[in-house]
């Protein structure tokens, strides 16, 4: 039986994980694009991303593109698995 994940269950982190899942395997999402998409401030988004990264659910990569710093966020295999488990647990509660 699947179990709920307290790290993922927080509303903002749930949306972050869902957005990354929506783009498919290996997709990397730009930090500012994610912030605009979820209507979050940089500080708020950064804090939640740190929590998810510490849990090993996402990977944060910083690089320079045309001399401008860019932060790219992607889902790890563990993160995808935990998210799917969490969704299954939510559905089980409803059934």
């Amino acid at each position, binding site marked *: 039986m699947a179990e709920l994940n*307290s790290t993922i*269950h927080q509303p903002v982190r*749930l949306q972050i994980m869902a957005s990354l899942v929506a783009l498919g395997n290996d*997709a990397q999402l730009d930090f500012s694009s994610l912030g605009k998409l979820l209507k979050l401030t940089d500080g708020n988004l950064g804090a939640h991303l740190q929590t998810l990264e510490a849990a090993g659910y996402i990977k944060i990569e910083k690089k320079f593109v045309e001399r401008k710093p860019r932060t*790219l966020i992607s889902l790890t295999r563990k993160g995808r698995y935990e998210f799917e488990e969490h969704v299954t647990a939510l*559905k089980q509660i409803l059934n």
Partner: protein
Amino acid sequence: MNISKQEAQESLTEIDNAISQTQKAAGHFTGYILMLWGVIWAIGFSATQFFPHGSRWFMLTLDTIGFFGTWICVRKSNFKFGRPGGGRIGLAWMILFGYMILWGGLLQPSGHESMAFYSTVCMCAYVMMGLWLSRFLLWLGLMVTVLTVAGFYLLPMWFPLWMGITGGGALFLSGLSICRSWK
């Protein structure tokens, strides 16, 4: 961790909303690029049917406009996402474009052979991109390839117009359907 049924339902709704919002943002970007190339193919090939002598330079000019248009779409997009090494896709298209000019010079295909050649090379790139990025591009590439070959053999007199309507139409409608389905 225990939650109520109502809370579980709210969480699932939040997930669905976030997924559709993300797909909408990503879809619009891809959809607009496909629509742009659909219009370019439709204008370019259809014009070739009626003005066959200027077709080579006409198509080259339109393709160049298409590449700049695509580049502008990528640059202006507020929603930036990709995959590791994804930046190389743009570079790969530039290389392919260069090779197409080279092959065109070496093989010197003319008339309908030329149109079928350049179209199928482009669709080959769509199919290969589809292997890594999205099955949708793979099937679109295969479908337009089949339409190209069918028109080449079955409708030789109307081949440019056929390519404009079916090839350009397929690209445009695919882009439109992506934009609409993820609204």
